[in-house]
């Protein structure tokens, strides 16, 4: 899994405008005016199903209608990967599924229909634009201990990148 921050609002430009206008504002109000565009690669569709439930954001995800599946393109959860017997079961199942996908496409079934057999473990890629207020809500929900390991890793990385890019916003919010 990899998260990359592609673009983000210039917080100082927004703050400078407000200060030059003599506007009184709380740092928290800037949460509605600072946007981040992330790219997330090679997490599972399990995790992106969870992510897109946070609807106040914009998403564009790799389509399975046209892209191929490969045996390497699946995520293995740590509880499976660390259990040799379970990993064999998992691996065998993925092999059957992948071969079924390949055989169907070879028989002329379009990828968009053959993909019905593919599992949630398949890796995916997406771009996501989100405002800081929504990101804060996602962080609050998805970095909690009850959240699943993979989305916790994705969102933790998103937040790390956001804080690194715009420390002037998050320092004020987290210390306030």
């Amino acid at each position: 899994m990899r998260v990359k921050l592609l673009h983000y609002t210039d917080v100082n430009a927004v703050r400078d405008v407000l200060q030059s206008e003599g506007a009184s504002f709380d740092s928290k109000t800037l949460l509605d005016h600072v946007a981040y565009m992330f790219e997330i690669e090679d997490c599972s569709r399990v995790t992106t199903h969870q992510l897109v439930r946070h609807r106040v954001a914009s998403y564009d995800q790799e389509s399975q209608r046209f892209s191929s599946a490969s045996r390497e393109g699946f995520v293995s959860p740590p509880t499976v990967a660390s259990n040799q017997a379970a990993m064999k079961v998992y691996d065998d199942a993925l092999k059957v599924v992948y071969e079924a996908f390949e055989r169907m496409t070879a028989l002329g079934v379009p990828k968009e229909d053959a993909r019905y057999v593919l599992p949630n473990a398949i890796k995916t890629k997406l771009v996501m634009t989100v405002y800081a207020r929504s990101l804060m809500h996602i962080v609050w929900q998805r970095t909690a201990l009850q959240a699943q390991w993979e989305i916790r890793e994705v969102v933790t990385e998103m937040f790390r990148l956001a804080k690194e890019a715009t420390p002037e916003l998050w320092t004020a919010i987290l210390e306030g």
Partner: protein
Amino acid sequence: MKASLVWSVPKPEKVIAVAMRRCYSTKPIEEIEAELEQKGPEYWKYLMTRALQDKSLDVIEHFVFSIVIDGMWEDEAGRLALAFPYVRLLHIREGRWLISMNARTLIEIWRGKAFVGFAEAIVEEFDRKGVCPIFNSLVFGERARAS
């Protein structure tokens, strides 16, 4: 009503093209961005034309920007916020607002007619500042320039 640009995502046409290519490519984002840079604005225009023809406006949501708008009174701002909840408004002082939004919402406001003066003010500012000229000409045509 007058708009002043505070910030826009850089090269919005390319950002929209990146979002489109992300849907149909398995390549890492760096390769997609490098290919788009090499192909240049004519190709970005082609992709944006496709998105608009297909009404796939989701990719245009990644074109985000902030402006200061002058000459919008509280009743109009309130109606705008109710009609378009993805428009983020911060009151600066009488008639002046900091507004952050995306270009899909701008298109919907433009088409909705009720706040067309607001949309025109933004497009005029984009024209003045040279923000996303391809988008402006494809979506808004000559109307904004003539107003």
